[in-house]
């Protein structure tokens, strides 16, 4: 099927909810825009998943499970909670979002491109030689990324230093927030708990640790590989104020929560346990460690995922039926820049 629809041009179905992403917004359920905000965030989450499928398949690389579990969180964060400016990525008064589970960057790259940090066309280059979209993010090459990383457990401590630095700079900077998204499996790393301890010690109430509790780590289930429960009790014992979502994919719940969080300046750092599903919304991936690391194996397989996402979400959110097929058709698996010199064979995970 040939179509004239440009699947990377989403402007007919979605635009950022906020015209200006610099000021803080406050949109509670009685607000006249509330319903629009929720629908806008759901559409954004849908598009994050779809463009993630697109970039991962182009790259024959990626981490779908963690990218799908964080989609609604990223949507609400960038569409509502975070103060930033894509035209000035290092605007000194911005809030800071660190993706500590760096492997889940396909989801983040999609949202950064959609907010205009870099062209949507760049997404097809993810993971390929000479693209700025590294397999794990590099803050010196990709606008909107706040630190380079990829080895788990390091960035929560960076977030502590960052939040402490803001506080030292005085009230204007102390008003800025630091959000850091940590994997539940990542909580196996001892350094994460060093960061929790230091945040509690310094009482950094401009810092929010968000734990993507999607229950699955790289090669198995968190409860079986290395259990972290009772997580809320542990976080509380480290002097963090703990919030648990009933459903980390419910944008309404997330909007309400992220309205309240920046107002909780009570001398205690905040922790949010996002109750999510790894691989959410693609049946094959859900709760399945096999899809922690693995792009769809073929364009056809990607097409099936995109169709499934459309049936679940795209259709009800008013995305045209041609979109999944057009996006599938746009997939171009990026070949290596050089010939295969010695008949090397390297299979995906």
């Amino acid at each position, binding site marked *: 099927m040939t179509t004239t629809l440009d699947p990377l041009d989403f402007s007919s179905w979605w635009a950022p909810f906020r015209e200006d992403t610099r000021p803080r917004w406050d949109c509670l359920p009685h607000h006249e825009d509330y319903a629009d905000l929720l629908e806008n965030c759901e559409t954004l989450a849908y598009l994050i998943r779809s463009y993630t499928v697109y970039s991962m398949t182009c790259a024959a690389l990626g981490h779908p499970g963690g990218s799908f579990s964080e989609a609604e969180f990223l949507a609400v964060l960038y569409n509502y909670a975070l103060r930033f400016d894509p035209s000035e990525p290092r605007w000194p008064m911005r809030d800071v979002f660190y993706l500590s589970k760096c492997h889940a960057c396909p989801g983040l790259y999609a949202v950064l491109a959609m907010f205009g940090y870099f062209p949507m066309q760049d997404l097809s280059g993810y993971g390929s030689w000479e693209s700025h979209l590294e397999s794990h993010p590099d803050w010196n090459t990709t606008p909107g990324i706040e630190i*380079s990383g*990829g080895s788990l457990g390091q960035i929560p401590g*960076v977030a502590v230093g960052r939040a402490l*630095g803001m506080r030292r700079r005085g009230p204007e900077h102390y008003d800025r927030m630091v959000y850091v998204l940590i994997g539940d499996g990542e909580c196996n790393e001892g350094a994460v708990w060093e960061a929790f301890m*230091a945040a509690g010690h310094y009482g950094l109430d401009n810092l929010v640790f968000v734990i993507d509790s999607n229950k699955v780590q790289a090669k198995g289930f968190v409860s079986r590989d290395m259990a972290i429960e009772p997580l809320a009790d542990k976080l509380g014992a480290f002097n963090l104020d703990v919030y648990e979502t009933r459903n980390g994919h419910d944008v309404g719940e997330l909007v309400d929560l992220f309205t309240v969080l920046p107002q909780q300046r009570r001398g205690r750092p905040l922790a949010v346990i996002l109750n999510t599903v790894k691989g959410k919304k693609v049946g094959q991936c859900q709760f399945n460690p096999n899809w922690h690391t693995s792009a769809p194996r073929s364009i056809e397989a990607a097409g099936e995922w995109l169709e499934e996402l459309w049936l679940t979400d795209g259709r009800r959110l008013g995305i045209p039926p041609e979109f999944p097929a057009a996006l599938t058709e746009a997939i171009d698996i990026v070949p290596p820049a050089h010939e295969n010199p010695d008949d090397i064979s390297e299979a995906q995970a």
Partner: protein
Amino acid sequence: MAQFVIPDRERTRQMRYRMGFALADLADENEDIVALDADLRSSTGLHIFDHFHPDKLVKTGIAEQNLVAMAAGLAQEGYIPFPCTFDAFCRRYMDQLYITVAYSNLNVKVLGAYVGLFTGKAGATHQSDKELGLLLRIPNLRVVEPGCNLEMEQALHCAAQTPGPFYLRIVRCEVEDNELWDGYEFELGRGVTVLDDGADVGLVCTGYMVKTARIAAQKLARRGIKVRLDHHPTLKPFDRALLYDLAEKVPAIVTLENHCVSGGLYSLVAEALAEVGAGLPVTAVGTDPEDFIHTGHVNDLLHHYRMTSEHVVEKVIQTLRLAGDS
């Protein structure tokens, strides 16, 4: 020295204490300088910084990974953080240094205290004589090992002034104020010729060993062997030009380092000379990469690893014999 006593600055020659004073001076001039301590401040000399700038010392507790991670976050807010713990413990935060600091190219200045054999009888767990093997292979990182207090103070100043990640190896023991010459100025990435009495043999040293090398040169002079001594306070980037100049003028080279003889200065010298096909013998003075260094007085350690000036003389004579045979 009792714990937490602030030594007399005019009298102490211990590099760790002079570092504490020098860093405090820098913080007087620059509001952005902060130091981070992982519960070793009165050992590393940071207690002196704490004495003058209690509001600028961030305590991380005994958490070396978080020490470096928090320094990275502070650097991102425009601070110039100097995280400081024992050099041996860089093994615990090497990945934070490699990825969070160096890959991100952040303005973090790590101070490794108690380098090499000088750990005050702390034993195999605290001796740090293998770490350059990795530190010298981290992109973006500059590695400096000063040989005297003047040079340490200048290197600290340079690190504060120069954007990007630094690693400074600070020795615990007493050192001379100036092993070089009046008016000496440290320049990042440049080695210096300390003595040029002639071209019988080349000594190449870094850090504390400049002292040993100078004493050895005097002893060699008494035996009629004239020494050119080059000191390389910057190990990364390494001043190959000075080394190549030396290699053209001497028949043999001996390297001296307060570190094991693999992965550090000797490896830098050997790699550089091999690349240009320099055919002269090059031998090393330093510890054994296959050893855990057991507890003992530093005199005994230096004797065991043949790192005294007497041993350097012996090594020079052996190496010249090799050169004569070839």
